[in-house]
């Protein structure tokens, strides 16, 4: 009996120290000067622009990575070809490589003066690095693996019999995908979307390097939090952090609300 409580104590204590107490303290600090001060801090033009930019990152990176993730998972699970293992390993690269390295490598490729793709775009008048497109690229890169990784196991589990049954009943490949495959894997995909969203919301390192950090122009919410912190504006930093946390929470809740009863059994 005693060991049961000891285990529980370790698990809960660990979570409290690492997660619970720090998050609670962020909330406490955000509202140390009252709700009004916190509200003012997150409604300055710079703050509003930062949140807007973060939502743009999410709005572009999440749908694109979701489509790519499902396609990649289908290829990895259903097809046999040379280089399949390589593709499978490459998808984990964003997990393995530090975001700072990702940022630097994007500068090398897309930089306006020296980047070998970026200089071509610069001639066309399109700026990638130190601008929104580069930040979107960085966000997409770091949040790429989640949908693929969450979709592969469910795709393996459902097998191909339902799809074969649909084919014998007259469904073409697209009808089979949208009516059978996608509904069958949707909770795996949905969980991948939640993780992708959370990662895109929270990305700091890679975006920090490619953004150039121009306040009110290329500053996302996480970059805003850090620059407020550096300027000793604690309320601003913590209040913005609270808003970020709330957006992530809303995403999670939304997922649980749309989840029908049938899938919970």
């Amino acid at each position, binding site marked *: 009996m005693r060991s049961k409580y000891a285990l529980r104590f370790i698990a809960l204590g660990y979570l409290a120290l690492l997660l619970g107490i720090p998050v609670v303290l962020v909330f406490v600090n955000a509202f140390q000067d009252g709700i009004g001060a916190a509200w003012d801090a997150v409604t300055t033009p710079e703050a509003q622009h930062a949140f807007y930019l973060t939502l743009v990152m999410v709005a572009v990176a999440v749908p694109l990575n979701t489509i790519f993730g499902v396609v990649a998972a289908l290829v990895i699970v259903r097809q046999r070809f040379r280089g399949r293992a390589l593709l499978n390993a490459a998808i984990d690269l964003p997990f393995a490589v530090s975001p700072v390295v990702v940022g630097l490598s994007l500068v090398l490729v897309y930089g306006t003066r020296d980047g070998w793709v970026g200089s071509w775009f610069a001639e066309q008048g399109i700026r990638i690095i130190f601008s929104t497109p580069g930040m979107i690229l960085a966000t997409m890169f770091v949040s790429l693996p989640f949908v693929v990784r969450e979709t592969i196991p469910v795709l393996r589990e459902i097998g191909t*019999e*339902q799809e*074969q*049954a*649909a*084919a*014998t*009943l*007259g*469904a*073409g490949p697209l*009808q089979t995908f949208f*009516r*059978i495959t996608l*509904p*069958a894997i949707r909770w795996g995909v949905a969980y991948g979307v939640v993780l992708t969203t959370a990662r895109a919301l929270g990305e700091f390192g890679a975006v920090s390097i490619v953004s150039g950090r121009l306040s009110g122009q290329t500053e996302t919410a996480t970059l805003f939090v850090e620059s407020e912190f550096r300027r000793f504006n604690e309320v601003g930093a913590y209040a913005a952090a609270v808003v970020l946390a709330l957006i992530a929470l809303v995403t999670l809740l939304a997922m649980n609300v749309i989840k029908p009863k*049938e*899938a919970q*059994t």
Partner: protein
Amino acid sequence: MSIVVDSVTKRFGDYTALDDVSLEVRDGSLTALLGPSGGGKSTLLRVIAGLESPDSGTVSIGGEDATMRPPQQRNVGFVFQHYAAFKHMTVAKNVAFGLTIRKRPKDEIEARVDELLRLVHLDGFAHRYPSQLSGGQRQRMALARALAVQPRVLLLDEPFGALDATVRKELRAWLRRLHDEVHVTTVFVTHDQEEAMEVAEQIVVLNHGKIEQMGSPKQLYEQPANEFVMGFIGPISELSGRSIRPHEVDILREPSGGAEEAMIDRIVHLGFEVRVELTLGDGEKTWVQTTKAQAEELELSEGEIVWLRPNAPTADEASDAPVPA
């Protein structure tokens, strides 16, 4: 519609699943593909459905060449061993699937689904999900789903293989009756000879990717083309170095011409059937199937010496008779 399979070969890497197989299934018939696992019977069924494409040979359904057609254009009904139920759809939606794909009017779909659910005794289950059904119910739903599109042929891959013995027996009889009602050309795969004998009008025995024999259950039992079919289609025992049906042996109390001497090791009472296990003069073991009445009349008991004599033509003689193969 009739099905004609002509010299179909299918390899998976080095493994030959079907080796130059030709076969004809009559319109409206009920045929079993019977054989040990790995014999090629499921592959043959999948080739007919278009779920596998043959390396060589052709498949025609209702007189037209279907070899190059994808499954969705063959209009076949296919039932899988593990049901392949669409888990995210209700029973009614599952059954309606083929009709929905064909964009039939809503009231027509509803009427057809109702009719089919009654046919498979699932009326009242329309709004359940597959996870709320038993195995037998799921398989009946899969059958209704396959029948909904009025397929030209119905193909069933080990349809009762995943069910327990009682449900299996029930569904077998039920499939037989259903076929009498619906009359669609039906081919089903099984490794269970009893199931094949009970349900099918025609049995095709497949082994190592080749057809060993084709014929009615009676023909296969009484005139097996070879040792393999004989052993697969019913019990065999050995007498005078030949394979013989264990009930085609007479037990005699006195020596007689052509009878072999044997000692009774064991008598097993299985109800109406009595199984007598014996050792022959040369030390070989054999067994004879007899009835309770006969065993009592002969007053058999363990340890006694008796004489065994075949009471019917043996397989070797029988195979001289014309056998459609």
